[in-house]
């Protein structure tokens, strides 16, 4: 598998098919005497911004901290939790129980208070 072509930037869904985000970054594990191995995928705006430019990554991380949504972010998902890789990546997690859902849940609390949101 070509990690950049076949995994990076792909859509990530939870075990129920709910959108979680995209594969924003990859964590490789260095091994002595063997090629590096994929250890985990990461989801989160700060690591995504960091790919564009380190400074942008720091700004986004600071913004997340400022809004109080930085706990447990970026979300690191070990390879063992990846169920399938097709045109999307399915992981053995529930979106609502992960830190990838922090902003969605915060915004939903506001949106639910507006009539007609459901």
């Amino acid at each position, binding site marked *: 598998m070509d990690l950049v072509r076949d995994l*990076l930037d*792909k859509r990530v869904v939870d075990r129920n098919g709910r959108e979680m*985000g995209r594969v924003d970054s990859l964590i490789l594990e260095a091994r002595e005497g063997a090629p590096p191995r994929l250890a985990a995928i990461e989801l989160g*705006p700060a690591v995504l911004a960091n790919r564009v430019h380190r400074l942008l990554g720091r700004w986004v991380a600071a913004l997340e901290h400022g809004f109080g949504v930085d706990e447990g972010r970026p979300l690191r998902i070990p390879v063992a939790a990846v169920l399938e890789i097709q045109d999307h990546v399915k992981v053995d997690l529930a979106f609502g129980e992960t830190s990838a859902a922090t902003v969605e849940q915060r*915004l939903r609390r*506001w*949106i639910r208070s*507006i009539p*007609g949101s*459901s």
Partner: protein
Amino acid sequence: MSAILDLVLGVVTSIGGFVEAGSISTAAQAGSEFGFQLLWAIAVATVMLAMLVEMSGRLAAVSRRSLAAAVRERFGIHFQMVPLTAELIIDVLLLAAEIGGVAIAVKLLTAVGFQWWVLPIGLLVWLVLWTLGFGPIEYGIGLLGLVTLCFVYSAWRLQPAIGDIGAAFVPSLPTHDSTRYAYLAVSIVGATVSPYLLNFYAAGSVEEKLTEKELWVNRSTAYLGMCFGGVVSMGVLVTSAMVLGPRHIIVDSYEQAALMFVPVFQQWAVPLFAAALGVGCFGAAVEITLNSGYVCSQVFGWSWGANKPRRDAARFTSAFTIVLIMSVALALLGFDPLRLTLLSVALTVVIMPAVVLPFLVLMNDEKYVKQHTSTAIGNGLLAALTVAGAIMAIVVIPLELLGG
């Protein structure tokens, strides 16, 4: 039967949704300043748009992805930052211009200053998006937009010489003001081939669950709908050329453009122009707002869809709300809506290669479109026109701004 109904509805709504602030203002200016001479620019832009819209639907039907999502996956975030940032900036500018266009239309009907209407119109756009699903939004806008056919009726009643119109489909050099001529040609292309339309159409095809078996419906809708839509734009240009041109009326405001209806519609001229402008701009404002939510959600992998309850797509809803607030704020600053429109559409042409060229790569990648790849002629034509348009825009925009 359902496919035929989809086709008819698709074509009718494409015609109704074709003209908005950009196309009305550029065609009205082109007609008043250069007669029929720039009809070729509308024809070229319409063919480009039809080809690109057909590709958007094909990409969505085969890959189940919208344009923004496919670009992120194929080219990565590094590359996508360029078209994403450019598209969002253009979306905000164009949305402010469309809201300004609706506000001017209401002003024409009520004589109350246009800035008083900006906030209520922004709220109405948001309410439409908050309460309606994709189908009612798309079809409602398209059907209401059929009022813009009054431009075609007006042009027909003015009985233009068919020979003169036919000759204008062949590009020719102007006898005066060549920079202005080139600027208007670029603006017509930018007003017609808006990047938001491409992603909006692809996202809409995903929402409507278009399948590979319905590719013929997509192709027919795109070509018939866009080409008939182009005729509405041509109606604006022809009417303007026959009414405003001979009277040396230069369109430097929408109020002046409204005068083009006087010979045909007389006392109904201003209300009818206001209705066509208002409905056209309102439809575009709703689509641009929705598209800004689509683009952000698809790039970052959030839950999205106009058919989903808004609380189940909170980041999507928040994204389009923020873009709408920014545009309303910009419109409230009091920029002249017509100037804002012309600047936005000219800038659109500058960023077009960043949107169209990667799109062409995707449409030739079997991983995304299987065996339904584009033809060499289509690829070459679109690439050449896009790059030529951008080079021309980079040259003429500064000249026009400095000259203006």
